[in-house]
């Protein structure tokens, strides 16, 4: 409001003035960076010989960091001048549509590849495990996409429903000996039930309050899991959870095992491949259901709600019920994913269901582009796969992940793939330009 839009530097502006500006901004950035990093990076606090903490200087690290910031600011100033690069700028419509077309083409290819992964990488156990992990996050991302991307409700406690699913399966299997296939729908139903139970009182709240309340619920559930030791095993978690069977045939080496029944040589990879296809199918079901729901009245109501809640209410949509369905549907898929997680790991503890996990899933959805299904896939592959690639930089990965969340919001507030096809089209004239930033506050 107050910013007078910076006039772009005239094409023929003297290069020297731009250099001067870049130098100035680099100096300023270096000063700020020095202030920020002077104590935090310039001093290390490690216990000395006597065990008490002692300060020691780290001037090299400090110099490197300050120099890096200054160089970054200098280059930015040199290349972009005083323009703000990329900011809030949507791709031109032509490109958006073209990207959409590419997306429609790429999706079946990706699916085909996903189906073939266990065949191609049969020997590579590590890669198979990684693929299962990625698919789990894709499924969670798609589930959360219903809540955040479609209905526009920021849920910071999504992992709570994942935990409900995991503990439902673990407890039902251990205490009542129910099989995985019976527990899977039960876990989903229980998670959805929890979604309704928690959602009902809070869904009247405004966007950011809702986010904080869901965060509170997520933490409450985790703390209860830690402290209710009689039932949940407390911080030690639950171990020895039953592994899934291939429609009754366990993946074991004995007579009635899967391998023996099909006349195959026993191999532990069979189970991994089975788990891979299981999570692939679960994820695809999530996607298919989302796809169909978007075309139903309730799905349209979700998207309408995201764009303008007041307009929805004045058109007679029961916003509480609509929000509740989105919340419950999202929770149900988290429940499915949770029981899959429990059966794959064979061990669960509250450690797996922290706020960090919620933030990771949210980041996948946000980076992928709120509401975009293929974007979630790409974001999950990049983030989870990227984490694995840079394993030796383990401690830096969360920094990168936080920084990229900020950067994406600053540059592309609607996510990397910000295409949002209107689900409902009005004949041929419907290829109307998509507003630059839908939902912007007037």
């Amino acid at each position, binding site marked *: 409001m107050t910013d007078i839009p910076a006039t772009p530097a005239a094409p023929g502006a003297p290069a020297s003035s731009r250099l001067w500006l870049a130098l100035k901004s680099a100096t300023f950035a270096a000063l700020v960076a020095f202030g920020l990093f002077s104590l935090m990076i310039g001093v290390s606090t490690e216990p000395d010989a006597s065990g008490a903490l002692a300060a020691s200087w780290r001037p090299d690290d400090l110099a490197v960091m300050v120099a890096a910031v200054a160089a970054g600011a200098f280059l930015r100033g040199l290349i972009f001048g005083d323009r703000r690069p990329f900011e809030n700028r949507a791709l031109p419509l032509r490109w958006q549509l073209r990207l959409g077309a590419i997306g429609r083409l790429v999706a079946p290819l990706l699916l085909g590849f996903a189906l073939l992964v266990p065949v191609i990488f049969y020997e590579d156990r590590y890669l198979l495990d990684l693929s299962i992990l990625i698919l789990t996050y894709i499924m969670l991302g798609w589930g959360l996409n219903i809540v955040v991307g479609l209905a526009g409700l920021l849920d910071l406690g999504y992992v709570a429903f994942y935990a409900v699913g995991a503990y439902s399966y673990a407890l039902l299997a251990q205490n009542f000996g129910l099989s995985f296939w019976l527990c899977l729908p039960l876990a989903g139903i229980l998670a959805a039930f929890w979604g309704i139970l928690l959602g009902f009182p*809070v869904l009247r709240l405004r966007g950011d309050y809702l986010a904080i309340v869901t965060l509170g619920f997520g933490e409450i559930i985790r703390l209860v899991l830690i402290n209710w030791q009689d039932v949940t095993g407390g911080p030690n978690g639950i171990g020895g959870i039953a592994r899934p069977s291939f429609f009754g045939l366990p993946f074991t080496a004995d007579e009635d095992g899967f391998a023996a029944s099909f006349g195959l040589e026993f191999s532990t990879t069979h189970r991994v491949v089975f788990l891979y296809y299981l999570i692939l199918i679960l994820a695809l079901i999530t996607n298919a259901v989302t796809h169909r729901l978007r075309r139903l009245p309730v799905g349209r109501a979700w998207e309408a709600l995201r764009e303008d809640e007041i307009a929805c209410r004045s058109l007679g949509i029961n916003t509480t019920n609509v929000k509740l369905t989105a919340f419950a549907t999202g929770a149900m898929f988290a429940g499915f994913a949770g029981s899959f997680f429990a059966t794959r790991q064979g061990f669960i503890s509250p450690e797996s269901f922290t706020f960090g996990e919620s933030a990771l899933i949210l980041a996948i959805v946000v980076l992928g582009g709120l509401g975009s299904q293929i974007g979630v896939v790409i974001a999950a592959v990049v983030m989870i796969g990227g984490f694995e690639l840079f394993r030796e930089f383990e401690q830096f990965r969360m920094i990168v992940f936080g920084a990229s*969340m900020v950067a994406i919001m600053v540059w592309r507030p609607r996510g990397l793939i910000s295409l949002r096809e209107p689900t409902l089209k009005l004949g041929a004239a419907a290829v109307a330009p998509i507003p630059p930033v839908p939902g912007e506050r007037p």
Partner: protein
Amino acid sequence: MDYFLQQLINGLTLGSIYGLIAIGYTMVYGIIGMINFAHGDIYMVGAYIALITFLILLSIGLTAVPLALFVMLLVAMAITALYGWTVERLAYRPLRHSYRLAPLISAIGMSILLQNYVQVAQGARSKPLPPLIEGGQTLIPGDFPVQMSYVQMIVIATTVVLMAIFSWIVAKTRLGRDMRACEQDMRMAALLGVNVDRTISLTFVMGASLAAVAGVMYLLYYGVADFFIGFVAGIKAFTAAVLGGIGSLPGAMIGGLLIGLIETFWSAYFSNEYKDVAAFAILVIVLIFLPTGILGRPEVEKV
């Protein structure tokens, strides 16, 4: 009764710390209507800066308590304020006209960034300090003497003084008037010659420096810091801000004191394990049943 009084004192001390953090939430929410999710981590940064400053003072042999405390406060406030300014500049200002959830997501990213930055820069282990100030006064002698340690006195006194100063700034100075003007109508304030960007930046700077004071107090009181203290404290302080009525300075203080008292009494009389559950439950209950808080104004949504 003595036990109750003792817990009351402990609760007030804890509540003062929450109140100081809550002021940052409430000021930022009041002026730009966003939940500064990274504020808890700013507070954590403040505690770390104070810790590092203390260790440097120790290494150069400057250990006179009042002077050391003063230097710690000053350095922590200055550098943490710079953090607050930078966070606003990098993560929030470009998003000021974006859709409503964008700044919140950006703030969550910032919170993750700050936490892990501190973890990488200073190590993941918690940092214990020897007690800086020892001893206290016995208020009521007896079988169960009610005591107030000097640290508790310093915490409460500092909070009262800072509250007075900041209330004065908001009520009487030019800056405070600008802040209230921006809170009511940013566009109109800009038309009347208020530098909105600068005012918002200063709001963040003030919030961050108060959070730094809270960090120093935490360090004095508990004698330990780790990179994760910001998350839970941040949520509790946010609860305090909402409970007191978001946007209201005295409300934040009252909310902070209430949360501190509730938490202390809960762990004293019920169960220590569930004290965080109690805090989160209050958050949920307050937001559902009392979203305008104790001293807040009802928010009318305009089309």
